[in-house]
Structures are given as C-alpha cells and as structure tokens.
C-alpha cells in the first residue's frame, strides 16, 4: 500500500482527515469566542469593581486577578472540569440520584477559559477606562446625560477603543489556551489532531497541520483586530 503523503493525509481525499481537522478548528473558534464573551463580561464587572466598587468588591476583584495570574491555566481547566462533576454528582446524590453527573467538557472548558481570560480582561478594561480623559465624561454629565446613557454613548465606546489592542492579545491567548481543552477530551483542533495522529501513526504531519491552522487563525484574527483598530480610531488624529 502506498504511503499517503502530507497533503494526502491532511487533505479532503479518501484518506484525508481535512474535514475532521476543520471541524476541530471550528470547535476551537467556538470555545475561544464563548470564552471571550464570558471573559469580557467578567472583565467589565471586575474593572467596575476595581474602579468604583466598595472595599469588599475591590478586594474580591483584586484577589480574583491575583489568583488567576498565579495559577496555571491547565489547573483551572482541570478544577472546573473534574471539580464541577464531583459537585454535580454529590448534589445529585442529595436528590437521591445515583450515578455520575458531569458538565459537558465543552461547557466546563469554556467557563474555565472564560474565567482565565476574565482576569486579563479586567486589567485591560481598567487600563482602557483610565485612558478615557475625564473631560469627556464631565462634558457628558454637563449635558445632563443620565448614568446609563452616559455609559452607553460615551464611556463604553471610548473605553472599547482603548481596550481593542489589549483585547486582541487576550483573544490570541484564548485561541492558544483552548488547545488545553484537549486534555479534558473536548473535540477541538488539538484533540482531533491527536485522534488523527493516533490512528494514522503520523503524529508529525498532524501536529504540523494543527500548528498551521492555529497560525492561520491567529494571523486572520490579527488582521481583523488591526482593521477594527483603524475603524474605531478614525476620529482620532495621529500625531
């Protein structure tokens, strides 16, 4: 039997794993996107808590970012995945349900990378809010805007513009962190590459293919972030 070459194995032919790899890439993107959304939500709350919360909220936000910065991502993912299943199983036991209950790996993993990226987003948003000049917020207040309108029309757009480069970094980190979900069996790009590598005994080709796909994802989103930055700072004069 003729050995299929690199392109034969990772392509879309009869012996190709291209479709499997692409489906993995889609799951990777989905996990990273959900993580980004959750992380941005946590980050917005965290930044608000750090900037204008009471002492208790500030302390909580500070502890959250410090702990998440000092603990490996893999450990957080393990804790969420295995920890949530042990909690769920014992809660189910309280209701008289026997057996093993667990969150789906995708959900637990997405929550985990959301919590990890939330700590980074908190710092990004906090820095970005600091960069909004107080005069603009004062002007909004002087126009008589109520707090919510002020937030929606002035603070949010300005903060987001300053936060865009930082959030671009958070997103690249998320794409890479999502590869760790393979350790809990989520069928994302890395996992699919492992499966393909195991059944064809060609690990080198498949990990190279996975690397290429990650690079494509990273470069593509890098271009998008750049375009976004250009779009959202078109009202700003570059000196």
């Amino acid at each position, binding site marked *: 039997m003729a050995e299929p070459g690199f392109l034969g194995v990772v392509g879309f032919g009869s012996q190709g794993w291209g479709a499997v790899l692409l489906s993995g890439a889609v799951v990777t993107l989905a996990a990273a996107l959900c993580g980004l959304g959750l992380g941005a939500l946590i980050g917005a709350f965290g930044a608000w808590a750090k900037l204008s919360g009471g002492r208790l909220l500030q302390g909580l936000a500070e502890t959250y970012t410090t*702990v998440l*910065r*000092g*603990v*490996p*991502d*893999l*450990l*957080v993912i*393990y*804790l969420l995945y*295995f*920890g949530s*299943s*042990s*909690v769920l199983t014992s809660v189910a036991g309280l209701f008289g349900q026997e057996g093993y209950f667990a969150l789906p790996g995708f959900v637990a993993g997405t929550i985990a990378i959301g919590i990890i990226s939330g700590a980074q987003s908190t710092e990004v948003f906090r820095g970005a809010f600091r960069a909004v000049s107080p005069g603009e917020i004062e002007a909004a207040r002087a126009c008589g805007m109520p707090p919510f309108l002020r937030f929606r029309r002035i603070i949010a757009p300005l903060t987001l513009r300053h936060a865009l480069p930082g959030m671009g970094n958070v997103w*690249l980190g998320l*794409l*890479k*962190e999502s*590869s*760790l979900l*393979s*350790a809990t069996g989520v069928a994302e790009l*890395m996992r699919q*590459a*492992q499966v393909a*590598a195991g059944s064809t*005994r*060609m*690990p*080198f*080709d498949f*990990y*190279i293919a*996975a*690397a290429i796909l*990650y*690079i494509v994802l*990273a*470069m593509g989103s890098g271009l998008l972030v750049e375009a976004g930055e250009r779009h959202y700072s078109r009202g700003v004069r570059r000196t």
Partner: protein
Amino acid sequence: MNLPFIFETLERLIAGIPLTLELATLSVAAGGCIGLCIALMRLSGRWPLVAFAWLYVQLMRSTPLLVLLFLIYYGLGQFAAVRNGPLWPVLREPYWCALIALSFNSAAYAAEIIRGGLLSVGHKEREAALACGMSRLLYMRRIMLPLAIRQALPAYGNEAIAMVKATSLASLVTLMEITGIAASIASETYRPIGAFVAAGALYLAITFLLTRAVKAMEYRLTRHLRPPPTAPAPYPSGASA
C-alpha cells in the same frame, strides 16, 4: 473539601516542586540565551537574519505550546532517521522534550522583550563608549546589556511567571510535576477539588515569591534613580572659602 485532606495532598505535592522549578529555571535560562541570539539577529540589519528572527517569533507566538510539545515528543519519533539518530536518547525522554519545547517557546517571548530593552539603550551611551575606545564586545558587555537588562527586567519577570505556569503542560507528557501529581491524586481519591486547590495554592506561593524576587532585583538595579537616603547638607551661603 476538608483541611486534613488538603494538608495530606500538599505533603505529596511538595515532591513535585523541584521538577517544576527545575523545568522553569532551565527553560527561562535557555530561552533567554536563545532569545538574546534571536534579538541580536533581528537587530543585525542583515535581511536573512532579520527575516528568520521575525518569522521565528511570529510562528512561536501564534502556536500553542502544547502543539510544539507534542510535535517534539510524539511527532519526531515518526521518522526512522530520528529514531536511529544520535539525538534519540535525548528526544525519547519526556523531560528533555518538555525542556526543549518550553525553551523554544520562551525564546520567542524573551527575544521580543530583549529587543525592546536593547532598543531602549540610547545613542549617546553608545557614542560615549565607542569614544572611550571600547570594542564592540566590550561595549555590549559593559554598557548595552546592563542598561537593556534593567529596562527589560519587569517584562522578563512576567515571562518567568508565565514559564512557571507553562511547566504544568509537562504533566501531559507523563512528567510528575505539581500538576501531574495533583491529577493523579485527584483520580486516586475522587476528590478533584481538594487536590487541584492545593496545587493551585502551591503555584500561587511560587509565583508570589518570584514576583517579590523580581521586585527586589528591580529595586537593587535602580539604585541610581532613587533620591539619596538623606539630602546632602546645603552649603551655608556665607561660608565659601
């Protein structure tokens, strides 16, 4: 989650600290050396070197460390030439594979940090050194590197912390460092929360100490930027000789 179990777990996890620290220290050191070479290539102004350095940093920074690790540990064994080659005793060991992957990954980040530090060294310092008759190497050793290191230290501290965290991936190629031991405790005892929380506390302690060490080093290296401990006594205006 009960405290005695966590203390018991901590006792077992402590056995993994040496391996974690060893991997982190060696990979930061090796990554720093490779990163310095890459940064010098990037700044050399010769286009093949510049292009290579740029490509290296881009590729390493946009692929997950896990891919690199598996590529080296599982991937290289695919080729008979590697399996029969002289490097096989090294590439067969998960320890060396983890170390190589961590070092090459760290080198890319280190290169960017070092490049930023080197670019921050001013032209005047360079001119002064050359005017004193220093050779290029002496200038690099005595002037450029100390100034660049001072500039790059905070970012480098972050990179060192990131490497401590990254060593947890070594557990995925069967190494029994802190995360590996925690995972095996979790699967033995069916108490994942206690095991992983204890491991997290250990990592937190390590990174906390590391942050303090970097802060202390920064403090020492910026001695000249602090105001003197006591202001020198001003000359009495009438007492000039």
